[in-house]
């Protein structure tokens, strides 16, 4: 039902936020685009595996700004004890300073909520906001753009190392049923700079809300970005999250996408390798149970020579969960010596779990190395026998093997507390499933 959104868009346009003309224009562009196209349907190639109707036909009102009594204790389960971490908490899409601890940042680094940065007219905003995740990229992005108001803003000046990671926690309180939030974040890493950003999308168990998030990251020449997205929404919520990363020459990006929550969880990752000699890594883990539908759509644009990408996504699906992986790699005629590796592996723990997986290699250069492998299936038999030979068989043996399958991704997370926290969550999930 798009009418509810359109009404909300009008309200926001009347009394919302900063009044810079460029921003007004951007929002209007989003609104017009959304009014024209609405949500995608399963007739769209990019959404054909999805069960969209429950989300797109429901009435979601803009989530209330009021904090409604969210306390530090509600946020605590979603934090990680990363040394020096700077934490910004957002409730229902709005910055919650009382729950945040942004700490001190080095000179040349700006870490603020987007609304504050818009108020202060930070020059990077007009230069970058809406330039990568353009409203034309689809209904959800258009809708988010119409509501641009708050989210994370990070700017790192050239050759500056931002130091300890920044963690943005987007919590939906779930106190009002069918509430929508549209967090919008922008990360700008200037030439030669370096930053690590974590984004958590979370909510209380049982919450029936909709998070429609968009993050744009611009990574300048020779700059480094480490990006972790951790989706731990309520298992009854909907989450559509889009991350657009734009990389300059010689830059390095490592992206993690961990999806554990949401009834409907869609993670879009678009990376535009816009320069030579770029290296990127994309790692993903999704774990679905019940009737969760978890979708990862990644889209890599190799537009220049000598770039390398390594992508590994792994899924564990139980009960009647449905996984989707679509990994597009587009190599333009200019992008000679591209080296792109894609691996997608899924474990189905029950007969009724399923996965739709589609590699989508579109290669228009001739001197390239592109490999992709998809496996659906079975536990590691060699490791299984090794466990048995040590007395560990049956359900416990299987649990350890599934855990090891997930841990292979988690192991690459460079922050011990995040790694251990997620490993514990995976283990707890496997414990909850018991014998079966």
């Amino acid at each position: 039902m798009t009418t509810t959104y359109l009404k909300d868009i009008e309200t926001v346009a009347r009394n919302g936020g900063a009044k810079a003309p460029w921003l007004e224009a951007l929002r209007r562009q989003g609104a017009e685009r959304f009014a024209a196209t609405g949500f995608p349907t399963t007739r769209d190639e990019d959404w054909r595996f999805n069960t969209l109707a429950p989300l797109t036909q429901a009435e979601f009102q803009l989530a209330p700004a009021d904090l409604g009594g969210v306390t530090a204790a509600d946020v605590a389960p979603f934090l990680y004890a990363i040394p020096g971490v700077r934490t910004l908490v957002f409730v229902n899409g709005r910055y919650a300073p009382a729950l945040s601890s942004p700490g001190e940042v080095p000179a040349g680094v700006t870490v603020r909520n987007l609304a504050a940065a818009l108020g202060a007219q930070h020059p990077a905003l007009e230069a970058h906001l809406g330039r990568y995740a353009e409203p034309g990229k689809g209904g959800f992005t258009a809708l988010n753009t119409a509501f641009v108001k708050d989210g994370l803003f990070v700017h790192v000046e050239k050759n500056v190392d931002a130091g300890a990671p920044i963690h943005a926690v987007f919590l939906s309180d779930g106190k009002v049923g069918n509430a929508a939030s549209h967090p919008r974040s922008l990360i700008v890493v200037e030439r030669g700079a370096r930053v690590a950003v974590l984004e958590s999308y979370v909510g209380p168990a049982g919450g029936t809300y909709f998070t429609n998030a968009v993050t744009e990251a611009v990574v300048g020449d020779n700059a480094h970005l480490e990006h972790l997205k951790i989706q731990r929404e309520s298992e009854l919520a909907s989450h559509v999250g889009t991350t657009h990363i734009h990389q300059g020459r010689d830059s390095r990006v490592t992206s993690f996408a961990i999806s554990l929550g949401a009834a409907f969880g869609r993670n879009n990752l678009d990376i535009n390798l816009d320069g030579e000699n770029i290296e990127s890594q994309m790692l993903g883990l999704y774990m679905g149970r019940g009737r969760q539908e978890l979708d990862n759509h990644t889209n890599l644009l190799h537009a220049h020579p000598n770039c390398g990408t390594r992508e590994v996504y792994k899924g564990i699906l139980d009960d009647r969960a449905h996984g989707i992986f679509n990994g597009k790699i587009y190599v333009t005629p200019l992008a000679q010596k591209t080296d792109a590796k894609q691996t997608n592996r899924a474990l189905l723990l029950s007969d009724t779990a399923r996965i739709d997986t589609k590699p989508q290699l579109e290669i228009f250069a001739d001197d390239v190395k592109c490999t992709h492998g998809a496996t659906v299936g079975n536990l590691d038999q060699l490791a299984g026998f090794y466990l048995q030979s040590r007395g560990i068989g049956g359900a416990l043996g299987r649990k350890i093997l599934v855990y090891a399958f997930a841990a292979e991704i988690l192991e690459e997370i460079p922050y011990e507390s995040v790694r251990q926290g997620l490993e514990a969550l995976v283990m707890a999930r496997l414990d909850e499933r018991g014998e079966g």
Partner: protein
Amino acid sequence: MLEIKNLQAKAGEKQILNGISLTVNAGEVHAIMGPNGSGKSTLAQVLAGHPAYEVTGGEVRFEGQDLLDMEPEERAQAGVFLAFQYPVEIAGVSNAYFLRAAYNEIQKARGKEEMDPIDFLDLVEEKLKLVEWGPEIMSRAVNHGFSGGEKKRNEILQMAVLEPKLAILDETDSGLDIDALRIVANGVNKLRRPDNATIVVTHYQRLLNYIVPDHVHVLAGGRIVKSGGKELALELEAKGYEWLTEEAVTA
């Protein structure tokens, strides 16, 4: 303790073991030697219950039980331990978690109490000394990124913790430098007791300078072609295996 009678096994279409008979009593150390491809690892894996091998004839009794009728984990719980020629890496699972799980599964199967993580670390601390390791190794993922030598040492650590009745060491010496060899052999020797037994599978005589066997058997073409005392190992070192394999072929 272990009684193998006319054991035959194949993998896929390939017949590998062609009638092996061997009796191992408590307190004994048996060495199984033989050229590459003679079936040594196959014998070890068949005893541990590897699903790639199909037993096509013969029988194996372990303490009176029909070993071949047991699941691999049941064999381990009954006290059979195989130190793998190629230990398997398990990413993301710590040595501590893995070893405690193994220890507790075996305790449980024997109707004994499971051990909590704290007590278990105390137990492991003792065992680590045996392989001259510090506690750091316990927080590393099982064999993941271990050097060849570390993997072998980890097998001996597991053996020390699980205290099997019958340990089968498959080429535990291969790829070890002299220091690591001494550590591994020392560990095995310290674990020897009158009520347990060891089968040492090796291609080289070198290890047998450290772990002195009571009996030496030579495997060729999936059969035991010669058995003798520890001096047989020295003879093999001097003469190689050809004279025996030729004998086996013409026999």
